[in-house]
């Protein structure tokens, strides 16, 4: 015997599925979020380095 659904119940079920699909992150968004997290982790590690105020950015790369 097939379960009976009213039109209202069916619409609600479909809307719920659509909502879930919309909320599920696409793979590309997962990757971008992971890349952003990595950048934040990098920033956190850089923040731990004691940096004297007089230190200028590296401009030359030789002895």
């Amino acid at each position, binding site marked *: 015997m097939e379960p009976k659904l009213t039109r209202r119940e069916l619409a609600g079920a479909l809307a719920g599925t659509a909502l879930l699909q919309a909320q599920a992150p696409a*793979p*590309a968004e997962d*990757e*971008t979020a*992971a*890349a*952003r997290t*990595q*950048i934040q*982790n*990098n*920033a*956190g*590690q*850089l*923040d*731990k*380095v004691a*940096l004297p105020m007089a*230190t*200028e*950015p*590296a401009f030359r*790369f*030789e*002895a």
Partner: protein
Amino acid sequence: MKAIPDDLFFATIPEIHTRLIAKEFSARELARAFSDRLEKLGPRYNALSLSLRQSALRRAHDVDDDLKRDRTRGPLQGIPCGVKDLLSVAHQPTTWGAPPYAGQVFDFDATAVKKLDKANAVLVGKLAMVELAGGPSYGFASASLTGAGLNPWDRSRWSGGSSSGSGIAVAAGLVVFALGSETSGSILTPSAFCGVTGLRPTYGLVSRYGAMALSWTMDKIGPLARTAEDCGLVLQTISGGDGKDPGSAGKGFYYAPQYVKQTSEIVVGYSPADFSDVAEPAARPALQKAFEVIRSLGVKIVEVKLPDFPYGALAGTVISTEASSIFEPLIQSGKVDELVDKHQIAGLRAGLSIPANQYLKAMRIRSLVQTEFRKLFDGVDAILSPSRYGTAPKVSEPLGRPAASHNDSGEAPRGLTGLIPAGNLAGLPALSLPCGFAENLPVAISLCSRPYNENLLLRLGNEFQARTDWHRRRPPVAEA
């Protein structure tokens, strides 16, 4: 037309040049034989981006004309070679290994290509690479227009990247030497995984004019070849100041390892942990034997520790920021989505949001890194470490994160595992030497030194290779 003997495909530059001068074969015969081999075997390993057979044969014809008149032009005269497809060759496609640039053609030669041509080397092909030289990061070996670089020692394994085709082509005897590039590991890694000798020059020693930029402050161009001597001969040819490269140091390099200090006066630093518990167990026997060979040269061995910095985070910040700025038009146009690797796409997009403060902080810490390495090299002439701590991964597996000194929680490093990003941040030269096998795959050691000390590295490399024959081993598949 003479048949070129098989052993010649694995010979060194001086060996081939001597036989060429002796007219055992012509430059045209040599160029044809290498072109045949490159076209036949290159695609088997996804190593070939573009064959340059016709222009190579024309160049070889000119070389033969010179040789008929006994005009010799130096050690690279008539030597078949390849270049990574991030270097422009006039009027030929330069793809940077990336689908969005598949149809790109420049009307000028890169300076390094021009210098090879001036030395009468014969360019037989452009070699495959990881797209955009790896960009900020990539997750899979397949991140390339030409597919995953397949290791000549085992095609189920990766060749390493991003100079994948350069490593493969030298290992499989498809070219005598190749040019690659390194921003953070892209010469040393394929050299190690493919069992060839690779030299990352000091930053600024080789012009990058006509090369794709990934990171203005970290990109370097260098040779992958059979031996340390071959690397020295190639570096001598391609080095030198170039007003067209803002990063050029304005210095040349003359290959003269005989004039560096006596081996007994050379001090080599290392970390014992690298050779015992940090390297993968299978690789340890080969690495430990290599360490003993280095010790047997008569050098003084001392223990060293890397200056304590978060090298992975530093290199990641610098490369991501610069790469995303360089490729901003690609990102903003949406064509970035045509890239093969989703990690690369995400990394480029995310890199645009790195605050200026974070980049500047990384560059300021880089100054401290340079200062600390200067101090370290007051006490040692070279630092010895495994080139990679294990063998080539399977092509089908996701790639691990690049070697970094600290993990995300900031834990202290073990051994010298951060030396690749550290050496690249400080602009230091490094030489990778094949040193044995683990599970039938190549293992390699690296020597790193202070800026412009390539001759000392090459001296140690020559002496190591005079006592070992790992650089002479041939992959079995390539001979099938």
